[in-house]
């Protein structure tokens, strides 16, 4: 939202509600994962969100806000406790921040039933997009399958015929491969489910080489992906068999740890730091200036979540208690997303463009992502038709 529109909105609201704009800031509760090895995801979501608040000098959409942050430690039970505390003791009407789908499934259905808004900056389990959707739940990131679908479509477009699939043996791993296969139509050279948290992939790589696939698609979030990529390169496979994956294994922080072993890998994403639009340019620049590192997709999602909330705060004069007004303001998604094209579908999940990024080396020698091509325009998700609000 441009400054002028913001100012006009503020002015109109001022006329309607009178001069006594609430002195009390609107509280936003952020339940996120800051400890454990996955802590950097929550850290980036939080930092992206904070950046938006700091740029508004403590305000979102012209309304003063207070951000409460607590660490769920990746545990559903703890996430639930924090949500309860934010709602009961702090009187929060807006929650956000959850990184992992299992935590989201423990928190979201209950709080949205109890009349609290939940804006998801990351987790997008299929249930919340389909049968379990809620009018008070908005996902500003993606439905979990989306990034895998982008990779599937790209691999299919590039005429690969015999792809080897690899994911951890847990629900999100199986969903990932299902998402990939939704758009990939060729043969499957092998489908391997590894132990969650496995660190050594020598055995899998030997089997993979023996299966002679023409491409590899893998979903191994966090440290597992770092291990896999390093070992893949050490086995010399990166020279013969191209690798594809979702952006989760190729965010800027992972690339720093993997280094040149990731070069040439292509990954599906809804965002990249080199996306060419004014909102994104100023976001990436401000994020680098504030934190001294290149933002990840998680940071961009936190930033967008803050601006989405800001747009609804501006439209309602900072009154999330006015649930119908706040909800219809959220549905409009009237903010400048760093992704450019962005709107909500009927199930409150994004309709957005998806890209394939390539991992490249910059002239200065660092390893980073570059947008290669747009795979989907106005892409929705496979579960929207099951949603009845």
């Amino acid at each position, binding site marked *: 939202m441009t400054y002028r529109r913001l100012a006009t909105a503020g002015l109109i609201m001022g006329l309607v509600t009178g001069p006594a704009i609430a002195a009390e800031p609107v509280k936003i509760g952020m339940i996120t994962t800051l400890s454990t090895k996955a802590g950097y995801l929550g850290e980036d979501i939080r930092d992206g969100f904070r950046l938006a608040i700091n740029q508004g000098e403590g305000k979102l959409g012209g309304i003063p806000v207070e951000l409460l942050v607590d660490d769920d430690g990746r545990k559903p039970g703890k996430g639930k406790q924090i949500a309860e505390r934010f709602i009961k003791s702090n009187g929060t009407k807006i929650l956000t921040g959850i990184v992992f789908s299992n935590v989201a499934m423990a928190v979201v259905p209950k709080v949205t039933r109890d009349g609290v808004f939940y804006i998801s900056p990351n987790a997008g389990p299929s249930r919340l997009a389909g049968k379990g959707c809620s009018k008070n739940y908005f996902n500003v990131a993606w439905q979990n399958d989306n990034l895998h679908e982008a990779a599937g479509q790209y691999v299919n477009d590039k005429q690969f015929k015999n792809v080897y699939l690899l994911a951890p043996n847990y629900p999100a791993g199986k969903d990932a491969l299902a998402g990939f296969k939704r758009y990939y139509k060729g043969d499957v050279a092998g489908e391997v489910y590894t132990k969650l948290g496995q660190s050594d992939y020598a055995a899998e790589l030997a089997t993979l080489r023996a299966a002679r696939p023409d491409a590899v698609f893998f979903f191994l979030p966090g*440290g597992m992906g770092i291990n896999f990529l390093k070992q893949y390169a*050490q*086995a010399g496979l990166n020279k013969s068999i191209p690798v594809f994956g979702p952006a989760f294994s190729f965010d800027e922080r992972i690339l720093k740890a993997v280094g040149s072993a990731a070069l040439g890998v292509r990954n599906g994403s809804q965002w990249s730091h080199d996306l060419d639009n004014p909102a994104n340019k100023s976001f990436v620049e401000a994020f680098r200036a504030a934190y001294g590192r290149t933002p990840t997709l998680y940071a961009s999602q936190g930033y967008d979540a803050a601006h989405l909330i800001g747009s609804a705060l501006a439209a309602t004069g900072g009154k999330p208690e006015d649930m119908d007004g706040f909800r219809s303001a959220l549905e409009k998604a009237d903010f400048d997303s760093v992704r450019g094209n962005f709107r909500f579908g009927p199930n409150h999940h994004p309709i957005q463009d998806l890209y394939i990024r390539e991992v490249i080396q910059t002239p200065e020698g660092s390893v980073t992502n570059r947008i290669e091509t747009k795979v989907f325009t106005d892409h929705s998700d496979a579960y929207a038709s099951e949603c009845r609000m």
Partner: protein
Amino acid sequence: MLLILEQLVNGLQLGVMLFLMSAGLTLVFGIMQVINLAHGSFYMVGAYAAATVAQLTGSFLLGLLAALPAAAIVGMLVEAVVLRRLYDRDHLDQVLATFGLILFFNELTRMLWGRQPLFMDVPEWLSGTVEILPGAPYPSYRLAVIGVGILVAVFLYLLFTRTRLGMQIRAGASNREMVAALGVNIRFLYTLVFGLGAMLAGLAGVMAGPILAVEAGMGEEILILTFVVIVIGGVGSIRGALIAALLVGMVDTLGRVFLPGLFRLFLPMAEADGIGASLASMSVYILMAVILVWRPRGLFPEPA
């Protein structure tokens, strides 16, 4: 056939890694009667120290040289500051204290290095692949890991059977009071043993650095398998640790590779993959259970 051979080498390599970890732990466990859950933290210290120095100097060997004393010093500090107070206590107290140490070390690395996993590369001269058999290229770094493991096994064997220090350590294990009465500084000896164990874990961490993600909490992944190894091998026995580590490495690797295929012979593919993968991750524990039924004190129990 080629694949089976390659997988055997993979199993050997995993076994060697586990041996480096479990040799130190079984020493501490067997000789000092202390349960040390924080052993994985020394592994992490080794990896972090090596990655940091290697990044600053660009030399893997300097990283290795820095990491070994770093892990040993941290180990001896932990022994002197925390564990020394726990020798006479219940095992449960030791578990509690050393579990606390895990949390402490993980948070400390996050404070010092941040949440960003560190980058550590294979040294240039080991970055290629070697054809162990025609048509089966194998990363030379992993072969180097196997070589280091064999060297450590030989070193430990010589240390314990051929040196005065080794003799004192073995004597201290069987009768602490008597050795002390003969004028050996048993307290110092324990600190030394602990430092040696920590250094071996640190060495495992350095070797793992270029293969795995160097990040806070990396030690816990390998720690569980390490405990399995020392229980199978017989607590306190280095020989047992060596045999058990290789056994566990083989069973884990071969299970992961061949179980799904085995189930595919008589089950539909999706189910076979699911059951095979699940059973493969259980295989090591099933092995442990079977061995404990057969030999309740492990394969090579130390005479108590």
